[in-house]
């Protein structure tokens, strides 16, 4: 008698059973929630909302400088607070930080002419000014993630006095490194035409990101989950992650095309030719101590695109660290759970994030 687990019939029966069991768990995970820390909206202008995370019960009420987190336009920021065991926000709250988050909202057709400078000065700048006023201080700590890291660098260059410490995660400064596939694909796009065509739906950007590694991202990961005997908790974690991946806001036409042209096509940030609102953005003006964390296996922001940052900024206090994970792994992997928050908290502690009263 043949082994029922071998041969085509046994093989299909075994893997079919595994897949059916996982699908049943997936159905139970349909209504899983994302986001775990309580927060309140404290300021808004146009589509941008500033949230303040509420302190955790039992967390030390340290006199720390407020920390503003600036995420990318192309994804939702709740990835940093997806679930309790991986939430960077929660770790920061536990350490006694006062954490704020910029939520860019969803641009509609009325925002199609909104420019990058509007996002920077009205959006990020509005959030910064609100926090400084609310706390009666001159400067805050800023953490920029991915495209939000680029914004944070630009803001720090234009308003150096308002940023005491800067942390960047998965942030590119050189947009034309040889291994940057996204950059290669952007190189010959006609941005004038794109700007006229209107806002770009989030679904299209998702498809573009998936197309960077289509078999791993649209096939393999599902097959692995279906056949890997994942328990209910692992399935729920997976669904939360998927919900975030596919929950991308549309992009304002002009701002997106400016980003494509100025950063990807013309690499203005490292060439020193970037101007926003008529002012030159000189990375040498970034004088705040800077912690730069990037992923060594990042397919969206290749390590070389970020590692060059230290040579370009004006700060003498620069710490870089390559984390052994991929782009998404920076937010939700075991590294995200342990190493990354620890590094950020220790670095901020060492850089005097203790609050000093406003002069």
């Amino acid at each position, binding site marked *: 008698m043949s082994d029922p687990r071998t041969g085509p019939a046994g093989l299909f029966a075994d893997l079919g059973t595994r897949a059916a069991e996982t*699908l049943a768990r997936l159905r139970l995970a349909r209504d899983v929630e994302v986001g775990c820390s309580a927060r309140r909206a404290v300021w808004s202008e146009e589509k941008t909302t500033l949230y303040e995370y509420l302190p955790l019960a039992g967390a030390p009420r340290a006199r720390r400088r407020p920390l503003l987190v600036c995420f990318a336009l192309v994804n939702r920021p709740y990835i940093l607070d997806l679930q309790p065991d991986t939430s960077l926000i929660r770790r920061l709250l536990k350490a006694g930080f006062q954490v704020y988050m910029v939520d860019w909202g969803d641009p509609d057709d009325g925002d199609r002419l909104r420019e990058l400078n509007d996002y920077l000065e009205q959006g990020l700048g509005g959030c910064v000014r609100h926090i400084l006023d609310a706390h009666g201080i001159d400067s805050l700590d800023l953490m920029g993630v991915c495209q939000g890291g680029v914004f944070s660098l630009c803001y720090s260059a234009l308003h150096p006095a308002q940023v005491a410490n800067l942390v960047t995660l998965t942030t590119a400064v050189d947009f034309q490194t040889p291994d940057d596939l996204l950059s290669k694909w952007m190189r010959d796009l006609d941005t004038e035409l794109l700007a006229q065509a209107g806002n770009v739906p989030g679904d299209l950007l998702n498809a573009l990101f998936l197309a960077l590694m289509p078999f791993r991202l649209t096939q393999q990961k599902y097959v692995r989950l279906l056949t890997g005997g994942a328990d209910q908790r692992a399935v729920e974690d997976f669904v939360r992650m998927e919900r975030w991946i596919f929950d991308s806001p549309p992009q304002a036409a002009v701002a997106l095309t400016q980003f494509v042209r100025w950063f990807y096509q013309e690499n203005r940030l490292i060439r020193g030719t970037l101007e926003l609102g008529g002012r030159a953005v000189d990375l040498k003006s970034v004088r705040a101590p800077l912690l730069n964390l990037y992923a060594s296996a990042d397919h969206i922001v290749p390590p070389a695109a970020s590692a060059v940052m230290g040579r370009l900024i004006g700060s003498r206090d620069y710490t870089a660290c390559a984390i052994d994970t991929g782009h998404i792994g920076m937010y939700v992997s075991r590294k995200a759970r342990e190493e990354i928050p620890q590094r950020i908290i220790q670095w901020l502690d060492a850089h005097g994030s203790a609050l000093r009263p406003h002069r």
Partner: protein
Amino acid sequence: MTGNPFATGSASDAAFTAAAGRFFELLKTFTTAPAAAAGQAPDLSLLGAQLAAQFEQWLKGSAGAGASFAAAAGFPGGSPGWPPGAVPLGPAAAGHGSQAQQAWELLMKLGSLQGELARYWSEIAQDAAQRFTARVGGTGAAGLTSEGALALYETWVQCAEEAYAATVRKDDFCRLQAQLANTATALLLAQRRQADALARAWGLPTREEADALQRQLRELRQQLKERTAAPRPSAPAGKAAPRKAAAKPKAAAKPKAAAKRRHAAPRRARAGRRGRS
């Protein structure tokens, strides 16, 4: 992908069952691979051809690869929906000869570019199949266990990604992809001009007019901000008056209640997150 497949249970099930379906189809192909005769290497050419054909088909229709380019080109089957598909102008637009001609030429160009793209999908599929058959060598499917099948699948994905990466990084592929997107966008804009001509004839507002109004609105907002950001004479002592005076827009003082209202408003795929991040 159209929308968030994980926003609803049924869509999520569909994403997984589709992936599972393709996986089992692939396994079926693996298990039909001929076993090697004693002392001889197996003939894997049939397996390679089958894998390549399945793979090419998937590339053409996949949301992850083919369809995103197809969508950029505005072709049916390109699901992400941008640029929007052809404007259904029909015979009403026939009066605008040069515009209709231009749109027609762009459509023809898109078809030609799509044909070029299909050649790349074929190249990737062939390359992946060759890499796979070379790598698995004489490994037969007879007596394949579940774990062995999964290992074979992992090898296939690795070969597919390598073949894909080798092609899509080429300069000519990147140029083609940009051409597709640019031509599709030009077609959309040409069709919009036709639609605008009709709207104008019927006395309806056009895209141009909407854009002009938006620009005026932006200018007015900017002027309002500049006026309201004038230095405040009664800045409280001890506050950072110079900094505030220089930069803070009046809108920054928007009541918290308004922010809360917006936060509570239902948004796509955000149900269940109210009050949380």
